[in-house]
């Protein structure tokens, strides 16, 4: 055979030999070779090789695959007991090694368990609906002019929902939920506040919420029908037979109870206390035309039920047609509709206007990624330590190989060992999981609503599977390492074992772990700094000692009167919303200079006390005076950004006074220009142009300035005052600073998670380093003793032993620090408005803390080794 002629790729042939039955192999290999030669001639070497590989993959079929031999299986199963036995012995003998690995793995696995349990919970959302995989939500996207489209809304327009219901033959049913149906329900003497939605007739056709009483087909048909959940019904009625009873809502209208629902399951993405029939809403709604407009995509959720085996693409095309048709009827804006599967709601993209809490995909991926890093770190520990102590086990491997163990046998023995360790770690991980669970869930209020994390047989089974995977993953490298050992070499002379050659590889692994540790601690420090910075951010007005009380529909005047009687209350103002916490109300404003230019501005409706109470600074003009109370709105205070945006009076705050602007098509006179302040959250780049409007009737909150030494007693006084005005609702009062802290709860949660994981990674890396130092110094004890006998001092010896590790740590810091710094400086922080500047000394502090811990680990062990009596070691041999 000529060697110069082109040959087919060897690895492909090897693959064929591996999978193919021996009886079929020879001639098949020959056939393929013949075709290869032919193709080389006809089509060239490259293509011939490609076809050869493709053919070999194509021949991977049931009839060609080698059947596992019974004898091999038998040997493996017999040997398995032996592996388990030797493994447990080895685990028991090497206490340090086992402890380090079990501790490391169990800590990291507990995080993994949390994530698995979380995924289980998220995955079981909305599965109780009989037709859950045929239900889709219609989501909408709003776009004005040529501007960039807004994000998709979970809501859609009522008009779209109605059109789908009437003209789409492809859908079996459309369930529409309209907000908001809430208020105080009274029956006889009792009054309770409940909230829910207006729901269309087909609601119970699409969804499988179980009706305990009433007929699902007609419960939401007639106007003024009401469906209660079991709990709400029990709160309101004494007896259980409630069908047909009449309830009064907000002392206005009477509703008939037409159904009682079994309580909403935990894993439902929508939660409510009651449902009113949508036909009621159609009767009582005031501005029906506005509500039914094509562009009003903010208030209704529409869910469609498609027939089994329906083509989603067809329905989507119908939706596109509908959009094209309807978009023609509106000017300067367009709507796009899409279908979102029910299963994607909880973990899918984070659309705005959700009906309830959702998780979104980002946190799931983030948590998953972080926990993967922690688990990887623990697995690296295992790999590292197994190889580091390999010289202890090498004799055993040598003897096994001499007796006749194949590579596969050795590998399975070591994998068995790592799997046993992983399973032992699972036991501790499970205990840790039960301990961490409540802390994790209470980290953020939304998690508390979303997750249960309850143990179930299925969950336990997947935990065990997870432990097996972790065990195999941790053990696969050591197993390969041991399996490759040369038996003769080992038995002749232990010191030639490749463990000593693998030192660089192991140092790399440890270095990698330390890189991750330093990065995570630095990232946590940076995020924590940002959190503190935003909590204490100077918003442009004072928030100190201001208690915001939600009016919950009560008359502001009444409550004000009662509260002002308290000596601790210094002053009270009224407002529509609490600014700087992420809430925003927008209104259309026309440019007084150029009538074609208009934009949306952000606003708050306040009374005359608001400005002095919050210390808002006026650059020119005056505050509202109480004169306008009860009259037509005619005055407005704007901020500097509004002047700049519209170029009012040459941007001069003093000349801007008495100019007329059109807000919501009403002419308003500018009476003052206020200094800019943060209207949205301090870390948002959104709202800039802000106006303040005046009215005492539109307030949702009282802002109460309080000077009190004894806060608990003051609070109970306020509560008592509230009870006099409103016996039905609970007092909802929060200090301004608390509200701001709550607005940053997400950031706080990421600090907590980040900090927790950083500590885990550092712990795992530290114990890994400890083990590594122990095993390496152990192998060098003889060398140390000889050096000592020859006159080396303890200090020099410690330095000599630690040198390698120190270098590695330095390298890790030198890599990790710039990466973290550059990542935050160039990627993360530029996206956050008003962020605190990066402080390199704080990062160095984090690095220093990690280093100190590492030095402690290294120093303690090397010093111990340097202090050993050389005679003890040298006299043994």
């Amino acid at each position, binding site marked *: *055979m000529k060697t110069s002629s082109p040959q087919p790729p060897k690895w492909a042939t090897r693959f064929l030999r591996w999978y193919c039955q021996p009886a079929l192999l020879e001639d098949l290999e020959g*056939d393929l070779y013949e075709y290869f030669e032919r193709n080389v001639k006809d089509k060239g070497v490259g293509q011939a090789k490609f076809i050869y590989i493709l053919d070999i993959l194509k021949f991977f079929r049931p009839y060609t695959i080698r059947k596992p031999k019974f004898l091999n299986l038998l040997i493996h199963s017999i040997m398995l007991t032996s592996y388990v036995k030797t493994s447990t012995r080895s685990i028991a003998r090497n206490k340090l090694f086992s402890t380090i690995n079990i501790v490391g793995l169990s800590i990291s696995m507990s995080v993994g368990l949390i994530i698995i349990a979380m995924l289980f919970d998220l995955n079981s959302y909305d599965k109780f609906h009989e037709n859950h995989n045929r239900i889709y939500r219609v989501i909408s996207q709003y776009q004005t002019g040529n501007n960039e489209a807004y994000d998709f809304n979970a809501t859609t327009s009522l008009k779209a929902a109605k059109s789908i219901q009437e003209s789409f033959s492809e859908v079996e049913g459309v369930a529409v939920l309209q907000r908001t149906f809430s208020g105080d329900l009274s029956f006889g003497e009792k009054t309770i506040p409940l909230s829910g939605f207006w729901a269309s007739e087909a609601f119970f056709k699409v969804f499988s919420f179980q009706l305990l009483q009433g007929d699902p087909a007609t419960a939401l048909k007639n106007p003024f029908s009401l469906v209660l959940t079991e709990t709400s019904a029990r709160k309101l009625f004494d007896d259980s037979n409630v069908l047909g009873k009449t309830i009064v809502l907000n002392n206005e209208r009477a509703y008939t109870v037409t159904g009682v629902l079994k309580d909403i399951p935990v894993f439902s993405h929508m939660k409510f206390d009651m449902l009113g029939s949508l036909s009621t809403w159609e009767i009582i709604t005031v501005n029906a035309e506005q509500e039914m407009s094509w562009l009003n995509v903010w208030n209704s959720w529409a869910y469609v039920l498609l027939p089994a085996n329906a083509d989603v693409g067809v329905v989507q095309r119908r939706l596109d047609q509908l959009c094209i048709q309807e978009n023609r009827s509106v000017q300067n804006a367009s709507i796009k509709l899409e279908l979102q599967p029910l299963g994607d709601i909880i973990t899918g993209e984070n659309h705005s206007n959700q009906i309830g809490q959702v998780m979104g995909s980002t946190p799931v991926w983030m948590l998953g990624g972080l926990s993967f890093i922690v688990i990887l770190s623990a697995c690296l520990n295992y790999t590292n330590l197994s190889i580091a102590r390999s010289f202890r086990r090498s004799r055993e491997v040598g003897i096994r190989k001499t007796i006749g163990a194949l590579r596969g046998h050795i590998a399975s023995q070591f994998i068995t060992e790592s799997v046993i360790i992983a399973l032992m770690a699972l036991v501790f991980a499970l205990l840790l999981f039960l301990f961490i669970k409540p802390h994790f869930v209470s980290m953020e209020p939304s998690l508390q609503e979303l997750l249960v994390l309850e143990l179930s047989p299925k969950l336990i089974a997947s935990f065990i599977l997870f432990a097996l995977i972790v065990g195999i993953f941790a053990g696969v490298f050591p197993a390969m390492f041991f399996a490759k050992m040369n038996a003769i070499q080992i038995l002749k002379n232990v010191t030639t074992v490749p463990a000593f050659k693998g030192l660089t590889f192991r140092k790399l692994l440890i270095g990698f772990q330390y890189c991750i540790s330093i990065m995570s601690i630095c990232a946590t420090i940076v995020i924590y700094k940002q959190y503190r910075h935003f909590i204490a951010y100077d918003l442009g007005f004072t928030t100190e000692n201001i208690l915001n009380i939600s009016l919950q529909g009560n008359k502001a005047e009444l409550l004000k009167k009662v509260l002002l009687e308290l000596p601790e209350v210094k002053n009270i103002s009224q407002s529509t919303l609490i600014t700087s916490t992420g809430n925003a109300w927008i209104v259309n404003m026309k440019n007084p200079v150029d009538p074609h230019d208009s934009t949306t501005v952000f606003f708050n409706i306040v009374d005359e006390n608001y400005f002095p109470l919050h210390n808002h600074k006026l650059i020119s003009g005056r505050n509202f005076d109480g004169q306008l109370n009860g009259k037509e709105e005619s005055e407005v205070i704007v901020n500097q950004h509004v002047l700049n945006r519209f170029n009012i009076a040459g941007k001069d705050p003093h000349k801007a006074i008495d100019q007329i602007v059109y807000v919501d098509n009403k002419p308003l006179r500018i009476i003052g220009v206020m200094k800019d302040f943060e209207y949205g959250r301090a870390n948002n780049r959104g709202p800039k142009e802000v106006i303040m409007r005046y009215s005492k009737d539109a307030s949702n909150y009282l802002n109460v300035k309080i000077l009190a030494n004894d806060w608990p007693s003051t609070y109970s006084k306020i509560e008592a005052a509230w009870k006099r005005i409103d016996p039905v609702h609970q007092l909802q009062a929060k200090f301004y600073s608390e509200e701001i802290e709550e607005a940053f709860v997400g950031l706080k949660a990421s600090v907590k998670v980040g900090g927790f994981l950083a500590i885990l990674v550092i712990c795992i890396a530290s114990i890994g380093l400890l083990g590594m130092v122990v095993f390496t110094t152990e192998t060098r004890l003889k060398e140390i003793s000889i050096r000592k006998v020859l006159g080396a001092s303890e200090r020099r010896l410690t330095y000599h032993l630690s040198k390698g590790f120190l270098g590695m740590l330095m390298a890790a810091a030198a890599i990790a620090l710039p990466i973290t710094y550059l990542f935050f400086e160039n990627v993360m922080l530029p996206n956050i408005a008003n962020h605190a500047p990066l402080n390199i000394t704080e990062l160095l502090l984090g690095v220093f803390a990690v280093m100190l811990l590492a030095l402690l680990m290294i120093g303690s062990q090397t010093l111990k080794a340097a202090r050993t009596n050389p005679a003890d070691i040298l006299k043994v041999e």
Partner: protein
Amino acid sequence: MKGTNIGEFEELVLLTIAALVNDAYSVAICDELEKNTGRAAKLGVVHAVLNRLEEKGLVKSKLGEATSMRGGKRKRFYSITNGGKAALIKSKELRDELWSKIPNLVLKRI
């Protein structure tokens, strides 16, 4: 009995084996099929059919002599068993019988 009924492609492969007499190995069968039918006969398909025919007992095979060709791998030569012959004859008879039932008129007008 399993294996007495054969598919169209199986029949073609069987006939090709019979026609090639002593040189019926997989690659040659593929080439011959391609030449006679004018359609591409992939090794993967033919190999699977040969394997199935052997399982059914319609063909038997033996490895040939080792040569320096084909990367030193031997060829597997196929030959038809008595069962294979019977199956071929049976399918031919079935066709002939059906042909004989067709009145001449019907096919003349093509």
